[in-house]
């Protein structure tokens, strides 16, 4: 498990190869969605004025799954407080959004194709799954929706040099 700390508005995330808890902490290589992308998402969330409006009470933990990779996002008051790559199986989270990498790749396109343009659309049509406490998912949906918009926008923009 790798912890990617978020240290305020100008935080630069320390990114290292994730640790496989099933292999006694040995580091393994991960290239898919996207520890780097999610770290940049944390910066985008802090900078986003809309999330500043709708994210005041956005405090929850959720998992993004992509193939066998898992990313646990802990959000506090609209900011990405902590990002865990391949979290230990006992780490708690409240809801999860999981999809194969082929779905995430389509979802993250700037102009995504139909059926992959939205998590409800993708879940409705069997390309994605929603798991966990749906009440928490619904309670934070507006801020989560904005966060996922930022994820797409971040994926479409070049990383800072």
């Amino acid at each position, binding site marked *: 498990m790798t912890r990617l700390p978020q240290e305020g508005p100008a935080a630069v995330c320390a990114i290292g190869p994730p640790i496989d808890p099933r292999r006694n902490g040995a580091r393994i290589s991960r290239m898919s969605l996207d520890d780097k992308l999610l770290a940049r998402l944390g910066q985008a969330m802090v900078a986003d004025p809309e999330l500043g409006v*709708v994210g005041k009470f956005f405090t929850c933990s959720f998992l993004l799954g992509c193939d066998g990779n898992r990313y646990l996002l802990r959000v506090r008051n609209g900011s990405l407080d902590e990002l865990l790559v391949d979290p230990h199986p006992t780490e708690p989270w409240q809801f999860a959004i999981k999809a194969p990498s082929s779905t995430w790749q389509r979802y993250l396109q700037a*102009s*995504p194709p*139909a*059926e992959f*343009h*939205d*998590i*409800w*659309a993708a879940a*409705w*049509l069997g390309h994605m799954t929603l798991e966990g406490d*749906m*009440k928490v998912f*619904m*309670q934070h*949906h*507006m801020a*989560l*929706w*904005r966060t996922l918009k930022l994820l797409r926008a971040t994926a479409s923009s070049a990383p800072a040099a």
Partner: protein
Amino acid sequence: MAAPVSPVTGRYVDVTVAGETYEVFYLEAGEGIPLLCQHTAGAHNHQFRNLLRDPEVTGSYRVIAYDLPYHGKSDPPHGSSWWTRQYDLTSDFFTEFIVGFAQALDLDRPVFMGSSMGGVVCLYLARDYPERFRALIALECADFTPGFYIDWWAHPEVEGRELIASVVDGLIAPQTSELDRRLTMFYYSQAAPGVLKGDLYFYSAEHDMRETVSTLDTGKVPLYMLTGEYDYLSTPAQSEATAAKIPGASYQTMHQVGHFPMSEDHPRFMSYIGPILDEIDKRS
């Protein structure tokens, strides 16, 4: 100097359905063939704001966009204790209201156009009241649309307006302008609690015409079906399959459009709906 005043006017008319009278608000503009416009579930008539202001349409059509009771400026019935019962829209109420509204305005066989639940109700109007309409234009319609009658839309531990607006965005095409996207979402944040869910009783709980839709007679009333590429509640494939069951029904997929064609991208919507309105006009 006074500012220019829009030709769109808003008025009220009383409509009685099943013994209860509703004070119904509607917007209208134009002259010619009456074109009744039905908004989607949990929304109101501003979804048709661009159609009402389009002289290409209002030159030959009297465009009338009403608020269904409980929506927009159309109150619940003043004469009964509506707060003591669950609001769940039914096909009987929906169709009787539409026919009653057309009667209240003394409309001569209007064209009816609606989206989502307004598209689905076209199938019921075709079945039960075909002689009352000149044509039916069913947007975002399929013969079976289950799954959206869920409690989360009106739940005391969930902020329903934010939830609904942000869920609705997933039904809007990514190519939609930011203004049209935000207005479509905004309209959805304006409904009273329980109204969206109540509308979806008709759309997702009651509605199932899979076994009967093939009996609709388009010889009595023409049926045009159109669905947006990005609609996941009634996908283009589902709408096309529905149309294929109905002899004489036409179908088109609207590209770069979602579940709200009339409020997402008016020029693009007109590129699809304009020729249909012209065809109806020439036939009339």
